[in-house]
């Protein structure tokens, strides 16, 4: 898959920012995995930096997912953990030292390191009504999050195609932990919408 081709329009949106780093998070329904890429220079293939061995789509035959590890692609070491429906939060992302990087509740309250962060969420129709984002329609944009200065994230664009979801995460600095913070928003809707299924599966 040519990432540059697919996400080029979206990546261009924040080109002017100096220190900003871009990450791409996408699921693969066939492999039932999530891959994390760091966007590279123009005309270069993004670098795969992480893998999660589930796409978080629940089905009756799957084991109960309440905790998943985030694996670094190069070293195969654990760089973080995803906890679902834990401590009244729908998603909690922990770093390798088990400290909370970010979290989101079922009601959509987003926090980083325990501090609540305000964000503006624009859904598909709102985004496409603005000329600067209208070209994202063909990419299947579903929503975008714009975060304030207190966040390590600048913005997150989410996409959907079939059973796959993906997200372009723009962080204020290059840091894997910052990227993982964005994972919360990319996976948010998928996880929260499966709230009842988790409840069904809970022992």
């Amino acid at each position, binding site marked *: 898959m040519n990432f540059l081709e697919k996400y080029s329009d979206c990546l261009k949106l924040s080109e002017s920012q100096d220190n900003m780093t871009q990450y791409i998070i996408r699921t693969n329904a066939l492999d039932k995995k999530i891959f994390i890429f760091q966007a590279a220079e123009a005309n270069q293939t993004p670098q795969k930096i992480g893998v999660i061995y589930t796409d978080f789509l629940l089905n*009756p035959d799957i084991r109960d997912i309440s905790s998943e590890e985030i694996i670094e692609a190069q070293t195969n070491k654990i760089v973080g953990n995803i906890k679902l429906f834990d401590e009244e939060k729908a998603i909690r992302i922990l770093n390798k030292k088990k400290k909370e990087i970010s979290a989101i509740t079922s009601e959509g309250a987003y926090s980083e390191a325990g501090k609540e962060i305000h964000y503006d969420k624009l859904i598909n129709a709102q985004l496409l009504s603005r000329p600067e984002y209208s070209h994202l329609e063909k990419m299947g944009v579903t929503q975008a999050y714009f975060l304030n200065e207190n966040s390590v994230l600048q913005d997150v664009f989410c996409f959907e195609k*079939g*059973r796959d979801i993906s997200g372009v995460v723009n962080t204020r600095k290059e840091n894997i932990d910052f990227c993982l913070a964005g994972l919360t928003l990319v996976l948010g*809707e998928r996880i*929260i*919408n*499966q709230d*009842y299924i988790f409840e*069904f599966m809970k*022992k």
Partner: protein
Amino acid sequence: MGIKAWVGLKTKMNMGGVQTAHIMPKLEAVVDLRIGPGSSKKYEIVLFGDGSLGCPAGPATDGTRIFLPRTENNFKSKRDNEIAMADFTAHEADHIREGNEYFGDEAEKLRESGKSSVQAFLEKNYSELIENPALAWEIDNIVKDRRINAQRREKFPGVDRHYKECLIPMMEYFRPSTHGMNDLNAFRERYLQKAILGKNFEPVPENQQKLLEEVIAITESATSIYQDPEKVKQIYEIFKKNFDITQPLPNLPPIFGSGDSSQSANPPSSSQQGYGKKIKPRENRDPEEEKPKKMNPKYGKSKGEEQKSKEDKQDKENRQKKSKEEEKEKYQPPEKSEGEKLDERDSNECEIPIDHCKSERKFPKTDAESYFERYAAEVSSMKRIFRQLKARNYGDKKYFEGQELDFEEHLQEDLEAKATGIRVSRKSFIERAPNKVKPVFAIHGDVSGSTDGEILEAIKASFYIMGSALSVSEFNYSLYASDSSLYVLKSPTEKWTTDVTSKIASLDSWGSGIYFRKTSEVIARHLQRTEGNPKCMIVISDFESCDRAEVETGMIKELYDQKIYPLLIVIGEENEENAEFLQDIKREHYSVIPTDKLNELPGEIFRLFKTFGIAR
């Protein structure tokens, strides 16, 4: 649950209620889980509950769409309501999945042509069961519901827990009583309960136990949709052998989440549209007699009919007098002694004797119970409603004081304030604690000489029905009767016992009247001392003035001033003006029961209780 009940829920959305539209993406995820990825786009979720005709009675599917109620608020806890709605969705999705499995490629064609696969299944398999196709379809639905619920409960521990902890305990209060049903309908209800909920809430008669075990064994042996036609036919044959199945079947209220999957399957001309239309008439009503269009018997009666009815009435009264005389011979009438005083001050101030009815009564306790046995069905029905009220508080209390006010409400208030310039000083936070409204009621019946005969019997029946039904609630209520003395049949905090029943059964009519002002003063004081709000006083009488008219009038206003709601039930249309005279009160504060409609008295008290007690 019937359509009316759903509409009621819509208007009286309680705190833990869930609006289905708000959780739609989550429900779509459930559909995708049960039928397959992307199914939620194919099988649309349709919300109902706007009261329009043709709405299904509960969650349902026609094989192409899933029908869900707009709101769910049977449980106090929002989470329980959400899981219930998710489970309804999963249940209906399971019906669709099974239908798709059965029809294979044909299912898609049916869906595209808009034809119900449920209907197609029934027509294909049960067309030869001509005696009562509706029964065959009902059995088919029960067989399918049992299987898909069992499969889901086995696969998902959370669903099983929801059934055990929420749904089944709730069902105990929602299922109809088999008391008063004919054999067939009672057996259908028992079969439904046992098959889907796994237990019967009322004891099964010995003669039906084996039969029930037999049909349950067959039901449980249907492990796939392909076995259903054979098993359903076996069960149908058992019904046919043991009951008269040619009679019209009233629809049983659906089990929550196990809605009638064949909602479009009933032929449009079918008269079997629920208990409401085929309900058995009350005991003293002729089954052939149509409900009168107007309450006033004067309308639509010819002179001959009037004459006849007068003669009938005369005959009836004579018969009653005779039987009463016989009764009086049998039992020694109670001494109308003053008895133990409830409160010396009350008695002195009001100059009316207060009797606790502790003197010897003509009805021993056991006889009193059998005396009222004929009202068992009414009592059972009302008790169920009070239990439902209690059951609404079932579930974990997940909300607490300080919960933030609903955002939409807050925003609306802000906008209104900007537009009008008037800011209502409302708190930003509301208390989401259980409903603290606990009405307290006093029911006061006139047993003076003018209420002799049928009227007295109706008052006694009302005391018994309301009293025993309210006993399952947590409300404080008291019962009084008065002739020239005020009898305390049950004080507000006293428990309902056979002793109270005996007191009610022993009531006799004599004396000059209720002395409205004096008795109301005493009862008002009792209400003031009893915890609960709103405080309501229901008075059943002909309201003939016993004291000086100027003494009696104005009492209603005084009661209002004391924050007690007086609700008058006037016996006899000719006495309506007496109620109006008391304080020029509005029609909503009194109702008239014509003397030929006395059987409606308990229902009227219940209506007043619901309207002015619970809803207030």
